[in-house]
């Protein structure tokens, strides 16, 4: 097999208008000329699963916290024998990752620590996880309490009486620092259990692959995956609200959900509307701390701040209920099917091996659901509060004359924002009027806006530099679906490659044909027509309601345990993930045949019309 390479970072052309893009990110996030040799020697893959679009400078916080904290649990807490953390860089706006191996000679020494540490958690999972919930919710409550009020015109006399001795600026600075540190805290907590969930899963996974050679990954996932998950609770709340609206004969009031205030007012005024509004309000905390994005971007919209989103989903559910559809997930059917699968595999094993199988499965089934459920607590709830507080701050700063537009804040890094705050409290404190930012920042921000927009015109390379002969790092394989075969197929080294057929992970079984709808961004979800096949760089589980509408899902990136895979199995929809290029190869309107059992997506060409010079450059060899 010919081994080809991906481009080096320095080989990638900078999109026109994005020159100087390195300056918008902190120095430690970009490739360094001084480290070129080492960095070029490493294989980096793009995580467009979590970061499908270009980072604005402030948004790097999510990538930094997430990948740093993931790594610390491998390298410093759990002492995973063969895996340290994951090194990461931003290149031309996208995040690239490179797993850090443990030198062979150090592996053995880490084993006893590793076993003691996982034993600590696996031996008492439920209690430890309950404590985790308390910690995480405590952090969120502390974040909620933070306020970004305008600085007082004069120090209140009361403060002088009480001997406070401060001008109020400390509250602003402290609260900003707290917002950052509390968010960092929950990101650390995020990985306290995540890596363990994956470890338990991988252990069962490898055992299954050994006793049942070539067992489909899907079977293994099904055997440990939760059926009734907290992650699906927000969607379930919407379904319940839709059913209640139908029961109370309120359906007609959902005709224009783009005007949520009028819609909600009309419902409140209708007979039975009070009951519906009460349930609607009740669902907000915490379940509407939910985004149609993935929690990593300032533009992610959360349900509780954008009621038109959940109302639109409810309207859609109402329509389907009235068409006679069953909108509730077939939970009982899924549980029965899961039990059947477990039982039939177990029956294939003899007594002793069957016992090991069940023990490993039980551990994975206990630990693994966290991998899905934590999403609600961190990506949705914690990050929902975080971005809401950031918006409060940015509005206050715009009002104080620091920014022309509240959205400008996202074009500064989080540490640059702290400088701006000190600029503000200084100009305020000394009575100088406008902060320097008012004149110093507009040009800088305009330039950065231009750079970010220019970077967005290019899709990231799937990977950089020369891949290793085989990808063995367990988390890379599992979380990102980066396998040796996948990398080879990105490189075009796939020997079985067929024209018009994309290959990816067989993530959720079933075969369907239908019309493609390419969705590059969550804001385009509204365009999806019932019965279409969703094609996207990546999906978020929060797109829940649209999964009731579509026939199948195809993504560019993601493995068996990516969000799209999990949700599609839950919804009984075929899914092919990790195709590398579906969203750029497929056009909306193309007819597709998706085989989620084989992991193939065929673009059906009814009448192949090839005209012009490109027709002849087509290599059919």
């Amino acid at each position, binding site marked *: 097999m010919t081994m080809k390479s991906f481009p080096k970072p320095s080989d990638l052309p900078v999109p026109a208008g994005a020159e100087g893009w390195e300056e918008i990110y902190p120095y430690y996030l970009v490739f360094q000329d001084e480290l070129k040799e080492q960095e070029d020697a490493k294989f980096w893959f793009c995580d467009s699963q979590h970061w499908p679009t270009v980072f604005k400078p402030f948004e790097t916080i999510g990538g930094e916290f997430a990948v740093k904290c993931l790594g610390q649990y491998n390298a410093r807490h759990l002492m995973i*024998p*063969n895996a340290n953390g994951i090194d990461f860089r931003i290149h031309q706006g996208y995040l690239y990752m490179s797993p850090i191996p443990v030198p062979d000679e150090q592996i053995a020494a880490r084993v006893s620590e590793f076993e003691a540490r996982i034993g600590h958690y696996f031996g008492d999972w439920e209690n430890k996880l309950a404590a985790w919930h308390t910690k995480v919710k405590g952090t969120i409550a502390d974040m909620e309490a933070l306020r970004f009020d305008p600085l007082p015109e004069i120090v209140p006399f009361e403060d002088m009486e009480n001997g406070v001795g401060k001008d109020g600026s400390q509250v602003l600075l402290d609260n900003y620092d707290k917002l950052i540190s509390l968010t960092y805290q929950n990101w650390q907590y995020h990985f306290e259990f995540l890596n363990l969930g994956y470890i338990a899963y991988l252990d069962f996974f490898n055992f299954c692959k*050994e006793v049942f050679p070539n067992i489909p990954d899907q079977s293994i996932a099904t055997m440990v995956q939760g059926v009734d998950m907290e992650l699906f609770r927000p969607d379930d709340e919407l379904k319940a609200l839709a059913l209640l609206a139908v029961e109370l004969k309120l359906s007609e009031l959902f005709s224009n959900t783009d005007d949520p205030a009028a819609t909600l007012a009309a419902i409140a005024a209708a007979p039975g509307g009070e009951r519906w509004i009460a349930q609607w309000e009740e669902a907000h905390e915490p379940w509407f701390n939910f985004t149609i994005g993935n929690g990593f971007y300032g533009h992610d919209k959360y349900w509780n701040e954008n009621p038109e989103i959940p109302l639109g989903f409810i309207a859609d559910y109402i329509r389907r209920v009235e068409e006679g559809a069953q909108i509730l997930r077939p939970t009982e059917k899924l549980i029965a099917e899961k039990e059947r699968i477990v039982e039939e595999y177990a029956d294939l094993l*003899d007594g002793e091996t069957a016992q090991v199988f069940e023990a490993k499965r039980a551990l994975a089934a206990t630990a693994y659901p966290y991998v899905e459920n934590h999403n609600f607590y961190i990506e949705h709830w914690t990050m929902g509060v975080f971005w809401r507080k950031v918006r409060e701050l940015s509005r206050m700063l715009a009002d104080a004359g620091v920014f022309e537009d509240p959205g400008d804040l996202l074009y500064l890094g989080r540490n640059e924002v702290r400088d701006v705050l000190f600029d503000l409290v200084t100009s305020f404190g000394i009575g100088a009027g406008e902060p320097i930012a008012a004149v110093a920042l507009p040009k800088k921000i305009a330039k950065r806006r231009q750079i970010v927009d220019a970077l967005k015109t290019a899709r990231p390379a799937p990977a950089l530099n020369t891949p290793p002969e085989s990808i063995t790092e367990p988390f890379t394989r599992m979380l990102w679906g980066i396998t040796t075969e996948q990398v080879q197929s990105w490189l075009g080294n796939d020997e079985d490659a067929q024209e018009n057929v994309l290959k990816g992970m067989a993530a959720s079984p079933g075969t369907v044909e239908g019309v493609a709808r390419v969705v590059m961004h969550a804001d385009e979800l509204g365009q999806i027509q019932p019965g279409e096949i969703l094609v996207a760089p990546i999906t978020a589980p929060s797109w829940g309601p649209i999964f009731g509408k579509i026939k199948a899902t195809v993504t560019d990136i993601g493995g068996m345990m990516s969000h799209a895979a999990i949700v599609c199995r839950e919804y009984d929809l075929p899914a092919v993930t990790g195709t590398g290029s579906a969203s750029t190869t497929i056009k909306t309107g193309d007819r597709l045949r998706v085989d989620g059992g084989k992991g193939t997506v065929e673009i059906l060409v009814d009448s192949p019309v090839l005209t012009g010079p490109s027709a002849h450059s087509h290599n059919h060899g």
Partner: protein
Amino acid sequence: MSNNEFIEFFDGGKEPTLDSLGGKGASLVTMTAAGMPVPPGFVVNTEAFRTFMHSGLSEEIAERLKGLDPEDVQAADAASAAIREMIISRPVPEELGNATREAYAQLQSRFESEVPLAVRSSATAEDLPDASFAGQQDTYLWLNGYREVADHIRACFASLYTTRAIIYRIKNQIPDEGLCMAVVVQKMVNAKSAGVAMTLDPTNGDRSKITVDASWGVGEMVVSGTVTPDNIQLDKVTLAVIHEHIGDKHAEMVPDAATNTLVERDVEEARRTVRCLSDTELAAVAQLAKRAEKHYKAPQDIEWAIDADLPEGENLLLLQARPETVHSAKTPEAKPKSTGYSSSLGFGSITASLTKISG
């Protein structure tokens, strides 16, 4: 399909007995009831045989055999020919004739147009040493119309009186009174595609897999290896396709209506390299193999066909199920056993598992 005194349909829902249906007939009823759809048909039971023979025929036969010297082969030949002629030409008692005619019509009503049938004897005592040559294995294929079927039911009866069978019974002093037979009447398979399925991976005995070989037409070419079939491996539990190799299926054997035989013909280009089973059909074949394994409580090697005359959903037929012998002979090892790095309980096995990721 309704049973009566003389007829039991495979799917008639009646508990089969060896005495009434013979071994073959009883097995076809059992398999149908267990969700293993054999080509549809019915059994003309032993009561029908007795009714037929007791219409004065057995007395005449006894008369004809009286004093026959078992060493006189010529005399035995003559007796055999005479008796068989008596059986074949004897009018069927009205009641029995009506019942058979009615069963024939009911069976044919399942198809759009009249289809050829097969008639086979079904012995009640197949373990008798003479069973194999006493005509009890008779099979008549490609019978068209009721007349031919009725004639061949009597031909099966008559096969109890071959020269060899007559001599054997006289020598061993086996009285004719105990003679009995049932007859199976069954649709001839008109295979659109056919093949075999094994409830394990024949390369390593892995019992979590189902392996299917399939080609166009009847399965003979798959079994004999004269065509490269589609080879598909499925997960036994979820029926997910694990891998498939589409064979270049250059030829097929199909029934020829004109000659009532199978003829071999070339497969046109367009069908050669496409899989000869739809996803639904493939899943049905795998399910069928699974049911056979469950029913017989051992790994199976089945022959199946998709019948062109039957409606979708009912067109998969089981032609034969036999225990898989190569791997199952070593039963204890047949179940997968983990002997590798992750075989034990405890956190040590987790370490081992994590540090040795299978590529």
